[in-house]
């Protein structure tokens, strides 16, 4: 499956989450996922614990957890906001994290309540050099 969104269009947190912000009816909606690098490093993801729609997320705070065979890792929100949608099919279809981490592998969508966090995020090229 080809992603519609290219990683160059995303912003990345040092903790390996990405966000793609669009304007929807005057609201800033951020789609959040984890990078291909994170998926590879986790390897063998077997479970994902997601927040509920309506939950509040805070910048650099955990909004969910991902379980590999070996260990539990937190998912950190790159921004402050409120969850407006979760990728409900993802927990039963975790292989899309490998096949399409920047498209079908999205995790949650949040309505940003503050976009200050965005300035601290990395462009793809800077993120890539952090990972290398």
């Amino acid at each position, binding site marked *: 499956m080809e992603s519609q969104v290219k990683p160059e269009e995303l912003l990345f947190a040092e903790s390996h989450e990405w966000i793609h912000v669009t304007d929807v009816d005057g609201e800033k909606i951020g789609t959040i996922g984890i990078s291909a690098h994170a998926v590879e490093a986790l*390897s*063998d993801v077997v479970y994902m*614990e997601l927040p509920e729609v309506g939950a509040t997320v805070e910048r650099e705070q955990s909004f969910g957890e991902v*379980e590999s*065979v*070996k*260990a539990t890792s937190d998912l950190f929100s790159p921004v402050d906001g409120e969850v407006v949608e979760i990728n409900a099919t993802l927990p039963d279809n975790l292989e899309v994290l490998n096949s399409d981490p920047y498209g079908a592998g999205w995790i949650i969508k949040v309505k940003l309540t503050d976009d200050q966090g965005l300035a601290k995020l990395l462009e793809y090229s800077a993120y890539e050099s952090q990972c290398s």
Partner: protein
Amino acid sequence: MPTDKTAITHTPLSDWHENNGGRMVDFAGWSMPVQYQSVIQEHHQTRNSVGVFDVSHMGRFFFYGTNVGQWIDGLMTRRIAGVDAGKIRYSLVTNEDGMILDDVLVYHLDCHPEDADTFPPTEADGKSFYMVVVNAGNREKLANWFRSHIPDGSGIRLDDRTEESAMIAVQGPKANGIIASMATLDPESLAYYTGAVAKIDDQWAIVSRTGYTGEDGCELILNASVAESLWSKIAEEAQAVGGGVSGLAARDTLRLEAGMPLYGHELSEQINAASTGLNFAINTKGRTFCGDLAIAKSKEAATDPVRVGLELEGRRPAREGCPVLVDQMHIGELTSGTLSPTLEKPIAMAYLSPEFSTVGTKVEVDIRGKTHAATVVALPFYQRPKS
């Protein structure tokens, strides 16, 4: 043995791992491959074909001296004295309080007839030899423990030969066939938990029908200098039959499915041997050993927590340290947990209060503040199909 605690020890196969995609981690002071590609795939290939594991980090102690078997017996929960050459026994090592210092394999094998300066021991060392394989993290502690118990003037000697040798586990339904094609000895000719000295790929090795995966297979101990050559040949043969090299993470999920305890998790100096349920490895009848009275006392009282298996509902794996509850009452904690690749459900081991340890008991596991329904089940979770 490294005295500098920050120094990391490399196995004779570390270079091979690094050059072949091994994801290296520090495990008990050793640079070890936790995985090469996918843990789940490495798990399945071991169950279905063959997994090849570098377990050179395990400590290998050789014991020499007259009546050495009798002496070792006094430090083991399992009878060692009088065990015929050729046999290998799983045992616990306990302190005076019956608390577990380590779990080990005690080998009593015939020496091979070559001249000295080869590995393993030759007839120059005696007709048979004893070797104890200990956990990497307990190697220094156990060496000190054994040495401190050698009676003055007994002539008993411990030789730690870990770093001059390598240990390779070849596990799975196709494991023995691969080794048989390369060795002077077919592992299938060895009974389970026996071993012999044989030539593999023209090099002397200790071959044993042992393992830590719940599969049939064997383990090889050989000179460090010839280990990489043999390893790469076995890896190639394994790949040709749908198997391959496997890392420590798969070894952990395999042993957990097989219900086997891991030191630092199900076994520790805070746990009395009687609690483990490893009754086959504890023999207090007609013999004495260090810790025997304390173990008998704990068994008699039956109030210590008991090791159990748990199967959880849902898909979320629970981890070591997760509390186990019944009606919001804390009844114990998990010691290991994962999503079982074979059963495709979360499994765990835990120590629970004895009154809740019966198979079928419904409990709850607290995973990061959320409770998940679980049931006490019989160990092991997985048993290989009998051929």
